[in-house]
């Protein structure tokens, strides 16, 4: 895809192989390249175990690629990137901090003053709709609310980019589609660049400006697909269904491969 605006993130020929405890080699990613444009919502889809999480961790600088590199805003990622909104699947909230305490964590470690923090947190609590739960601990929240806190916490530092790693995987179907709508709304208000990793095709089509399909292990870019459907998207519309069918077929191939190896 060319000329979509300013390039925000560039992933170039990234490869990564892990060595297990007994010396067995697992190739997670092979020559993965793609670009993400400013303000774009990109979803990365692929069968489980295809290295999606590894890819996100490499983009965030939490993991070093064996080959290739990642550039964010034209700068090469060498060490963990400060100021990313990273939202993992689960268990990422700090259970010993209240909702407020969690959201303001990033501000706190970046030395933002107490008053300023209060203002930002209040705004975010309004944005994600957690009024009345400011002083609750994570254990008192439902799964969907927990992920709202995680999203607010990521947004608090006004991140360069949002990285979401299957953030809704552990939610029930209803909560999941509700959270998808919420995320879309929040993204609309904040206009952040987003990379969203999932194995859930419907979710990917519902949210994405563009989808990148990774093959089964080792993960390679198998296909890129621009989604031009007007938002909010209707998952039962014929266009939606036909895109879904197409992606599902590709995904199925990869899925079968994973289990034949």
């Amino acid at each position, binding site marked *: 895809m060319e000329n979509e605006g300013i390039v925000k993130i560039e992933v170039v020929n990234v490869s990564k192989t892990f060595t297990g405890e007994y010396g067995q080699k697992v190739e997670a990613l092979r020559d993965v390249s793609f670009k993400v444009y400013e303000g774009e919502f990109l979803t990365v889809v692929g069968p489980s175990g295809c290295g999606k999480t590894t890819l996100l961790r490499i983009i965030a600088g939490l993991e070093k690629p064996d080959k290739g590199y990642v550039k964010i805003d034209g700068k090469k990622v060498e060490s963990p990137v400060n100021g990313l909104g990273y939202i993992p699947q689960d268990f990422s909230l700090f*259970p010993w901090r209240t909702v407020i305490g969690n959201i303001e964590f990033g501000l706190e470690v970046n030395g933002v003053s107490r008053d300023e923090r209060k203002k930002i947190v209040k705004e975010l609590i309004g944005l994600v709709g957690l009024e009345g739960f400011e002083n609750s601990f994570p254990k008192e929240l439902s799964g969907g609310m927990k992920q709202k806190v995680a999203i607010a916490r990521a947004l608090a530092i006004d991140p360069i980019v949002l990285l979401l790693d299957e953030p809704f995987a552990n939610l029930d179907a209803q909560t999941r589609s509700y959270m998808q709508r919420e995320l879309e709304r929040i993204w609309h208000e904040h206009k952040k660049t987003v990379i969203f990793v999932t194995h859930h095709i419907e979710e990917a089509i519902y949210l994405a400006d563009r989808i990148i399909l990774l093959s089964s292990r080792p993960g390679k870019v198998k296909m890129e697909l621009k989604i031009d459907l007007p938002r909010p998207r209707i998952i039962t519309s014929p266009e939606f269904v036909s895109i879904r069918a197409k992606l599902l077929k590709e995904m199925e191939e990869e899925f079968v491969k994973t289990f034949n190896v």
Partner: protein
Amino acid sequence: MQLNISMFNLWDLIIQFFLQIVFLIVIFCNLIIRGDIFGVNLLEHAAASLIRVGVGFAIAIITAIPLGLLIGWNKKLSSITHPFIEMVRHIPPIAWIPFSIVFFGLGLFSSAFIVWLGAFFPILLSTASGVKNLGRAQVDVAITLGAKERDLIFKVVFPAILPEIITGMRVGLGVGWMCVIASEMIGLRKPVGLGFFVLEMQYLGRYLEMIAGMIMIGLVGLFLDYGLRFLENRILRWREEVGK
């Protein structure tokens, strides 16, 4: 005041038993109100032991937690120190008492040293294993939000493993309390302390006083644990509990 079981009569036995318990309660109260034959109150004995255990336990907390964090965080350090720690850990604190007397004399510090030995390892091991079992996600998120190493340790790792640390402290305090009693029995201190008291009463043939001292040891241990559990519930309000 000796147990008299010359008549093999069940009824007699039962009466004797309850009588002795009544005596025991009276003696226990008397020891607290009026003191022992040297005029030292049982609570003074308890206080002396508590001070010794307090000093040793405080030093154990100060030393074991930072070291546990380091060992848990650094795999290399963990494998280097492992054999040394396991070797020292398996020498019972009681076996250290002669060493302690040689080095620290018969003062507060020789007792505190034994307590430290007893309390140090449970706290160290639970802290280290807490760090090792820490989930990746919280640390990753903290790093990407801009946490420096210092923030990671004080604002993420430490609070995250606080439940394990407190569990280690509860075990450690229990062991420490046993250690102080043992150390007071073997290296006789200035004549206060529950361990000293119990042994002295045995020498003097005052067996009910001896048992009253033992009960006091148990009671203090119970209150110490209540104290720590109270603290635990206050500090760990956020914890998700599974059991009922």
